[in-house]
């Protein structure tokens, strides 16, 4: 939000902020996660640790609830009342949903988290002052705060594995899933060097790339030919349109977005789990 912006486009700025996307998008990166083939194996979350310099907090701090897994697999029992969970467990990969009308953005006092032209919720680490309001206002609770200087915990030579394309966050900074923005940035630079647009599948998040069953599909939801966009279309999940109240999810289709009713317009579509009656 530059000074120019305040002076000239204040009204536009406000309107668009409500409407979810605050300017002309170059891309709108999104995901589709098929819960029917997600086996909850944790490959994605470990891949995320490896890609994004995530801190390992250790047993005590994990117990305190200070763990830093940007991508976590939630496990629910749907029939806890029966003697046995006869339909298996329900696994839910949960990471930042990169909402189009993110609730974390307007509350940051220093605009350290904002909406990029790529449709991402940026988190600018070195602008963050750690007021933590964004986390309080996140319905998905997917923002993680550096409660300690975790970089001290990378025992030599573990620190040599750290990815130089992302900062290592120091204490007092909020962090979260970025849809592997460093990979997006790299492909973007590459594409620009070759005077072309980013091809579908050229950018893959670490989780999508690792997922053994290919449950996670990542891509540009604005690109009509992208795999992810086709999935969104097939399951009739649309970006939130806030003025008309027409239903966004077709009951027959498996696509849905979590907490749709909050109108935060998540960029992650989940496909319902399927179960056979035996």
């Amino acid at each position, binding site marked *: 939000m530059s000074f120019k912006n305040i002076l000239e486009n204040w009204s536009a700025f406000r309107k668009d902020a409500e409407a979810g996307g605050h300017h002309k998008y170059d891309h709108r990166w999104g995901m589709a996660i098929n819960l029917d083939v997600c086996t909850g194996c944790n490959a994605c979350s470990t891949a995320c640790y490896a890609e994004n310099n995530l801190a390992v907090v250790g047993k005590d701090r994990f117990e305190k609830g200070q763990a830093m897994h940007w991508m976590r697999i*939630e496990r629910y029992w749907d029939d806890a009342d029966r003697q046995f969970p006869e339909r298996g467990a329900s696994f839910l990969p949960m990471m930042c949903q990169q909402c189009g009308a993110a609730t974390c953005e307007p509350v940051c006092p220093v605009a350290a988290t904002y909406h990029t032209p790529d449709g991402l919720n940026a988190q600018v680490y070195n602008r963050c002052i750690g007021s933590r309001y964004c986390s309080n206002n996140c319905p998905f609770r997917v923002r993680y705060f550096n409660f300690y200087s975790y970089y001290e915990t990378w025992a030599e030579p573990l620190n040599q594995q750290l990815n130089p394309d992302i900062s290592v966050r120091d204490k007092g900074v909020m962090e979260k899933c970025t849809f592997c923005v460093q990979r997006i940035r790299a492909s973007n630079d590459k594409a620009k060097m070759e005077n072309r647009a980013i091809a579908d599948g050229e950018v893959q998040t670490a989780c999508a790339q690792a997922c053994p069953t290919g449950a996670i599909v990542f891509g540009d939801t604005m690109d009509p030919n992208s795999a992810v966009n086709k999935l969104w279309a097939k399951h009739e999940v649309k970006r939130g349109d806030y003025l008309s109240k027409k239903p966004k999810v077709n009951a027959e289709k498996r696509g849905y977005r*979590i907490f749709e009713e909050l109108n935060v317009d998540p960029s992650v579509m989940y496909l319902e789990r399927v179960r056979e009656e035996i």
Partner: protein
Amino acid sequence: MSGFKVNRRDFLRVLGWGGASTALVGCDMPTTVTLEEGKEDVVAYFMPEEYVIPGVGVWYASTCTQCAAGCGIHGRVREGRALKLEGNPESVINRGKTCMMGQAGVQAHYNPDRLTQPLMREGGALKPASWEVALKKIAEKTASANGDRVAWLSGAVSGHQAVLINDVLNTFGSKQHFVHETIHASVWQAVARDMLGDAQPVLRMDKAKSILSFGADFLGTWQSPVHFATQYAKFRSGKRGVLIQVEPKMSLTGGSADAWVAVRPGTEGILALGIAQNLVKRGWAKGEVPAKLKEVLAKYELGMVANATGVAGDRIQRITAALKDHAPSLVLAGAPVEGGENGYDAVSAVMLLNILLGNIGQTIEPAAQFAEARMQARSGGTRGALEFSKLAAAKKLDVAFISHANPVYHAPGFMKMKDAMANVGFKVVMTQFPDETAMQADVVLPLYSAIEDWGTHVAAYNGGVATLSFQQPLMEPLYKDTRGFGDVALSLLKQRKPKEYAAFNDYYAYLKASVSNMPAAVAKGDKNKDAAWNALLQKGVLETKATVGKFKVNTATVAAVADVSADVQFPYRLLPSARLGLWDGRHANSPWLQESPDQISKVVWGSWVEMHPVTAAKLGVKSGDYVRVTSAQGSLEAQAYVFNGIHPEAIAVPLGQGHQEYGRYAKGLGVNPYAILNPVIEKKTGEVAAYATRVSVTKLDKSARLVHMGSSDTQMGRKLVSTIPATVYRRTEGEA
């Protein structure tokens, strides 16, 4: 260019643009940027390859050694540091995918607790020594040893490493190569060999429309998890297949099952026979059913089976019907079945289902074995360790080489591996970490990590395509006093047969020579071996000629399955369940894998005791309470985790923890259920019946919050994970 290797080593040299070049946003940016602390130097390349560009990551193909599955990987290297591992799309095993353990491969490499120099035992204690001294010691100690008084204990090995081990033993005239793997499918393989004539049949889940799995955790820990996961994805797509998981404790695979059937532990075989009987009775059995078989099946009618297994009769019928309706099917048996005292018979019963359902040739195809027998995978189970410990205890071993294995930790307690090894004259341990076994050695030789070393791998289960998968260094060794396994093996060979191996000044040379001389290796008509070799390394995998076998179906070995005996003193059956992640405990020293929770219980950083609410109520135990699990062999203490994904007669304690050594992240954390296993041996295969131990549980008056991820076990009315019946799925997209 003279010597590809020299240049290669040069550009692999660590050239950090200012060390790790990772920013701490904590240090706020001054108005005028000055150089950051310790980042004053900028290192220039000496003579780089033209494709090496600072600031640009280069991907090299290699092979994952985190487990024996042999997935192909790509390693991202920047400024000489290996940063990230991804799957190699060229590999038929994993098709560009990885599991969590593969992702953590870099932490096995950068682990702060690696051995950095050889150790030698002097006056009882292990003291640092130089390679020369260590090798000299080995030379003189092994000079006189010969014949079967020399043994080599290893984990699953294949490719040229297997060849070298074999060659080393040959120089002694010994045949004693024992292979020890805690997580194995030996019984399954034995049964397959006897009933199908093929130890490693190819399982085509992508073709199957239904899978009935008796405790086979093929998504987690069974044979080749990533491969099966990719197959599973195909199995679930299109006309979605049905997965029925029958097991005493919910495994990762059980979590994804359409129907998860809790069976009384140890009676899976009976259930299998029950289903078989049901098939035959309802005339759904394909092909001719031998009379002998009929009479075996005769007594397994519903009522009796239902009583024995605790699975309701109508449920058994519905399962049978499901298998028939969703043909072709695939029936598997995993650890809980194989690990029973009646393991062989139980698995035979399961395999029989495949035969009766006509899956042979449909979803089960003959294996395509790697052409060169010497390089085929040496996979094994716990039998190897058992035999080794017996020999050792009987003072029948003068020299023991141990590599790729940590038997002192992994072997069940009753083998008393530690004491047994004390009776071995001279023990050489080749390892990367100061593990329990290394602590018992006379000489410890520190090895390269998988990311620093050369090698070739042949997968034990190859998914029907025989390939040789290459392992090449992604970066310079971190520690100059470590060496590659191949190099060590070669120097052992050179000690015995200097002339034969003089040509190879290191493992790389040996490998290159022998691969280039493999008939299938060099592309046809290509005279330039260097080019072919570089192309190979770039691709990472080499498809080779395969010998495809034929099935010889035989049901003669199918016999009645003995029921498990009840026991008053030890009312529960102990399930030492394996888990994708820590695996058998070899990854307990990886912070990532310790911190990423168990997929089902979501517990991190420790051990726990799983029990059913019914059991818990009987014992007055809540989650978090400490309990003591006692077997005839001993007892262990851990916190209880109460959930209903386990049979009330079973108590599950996961593998992976309870290390006495093995570095800062693993040491002194949790317990190892193998320590209290009863000495039950499966008769027909000689494997340890790991799931046949009976235990009693007592509550201790100590309780703490069980450190696990997530607070609520239910969705509390939110639409987080929503489920639709398969009928709807079929109507909307099933036909796609």
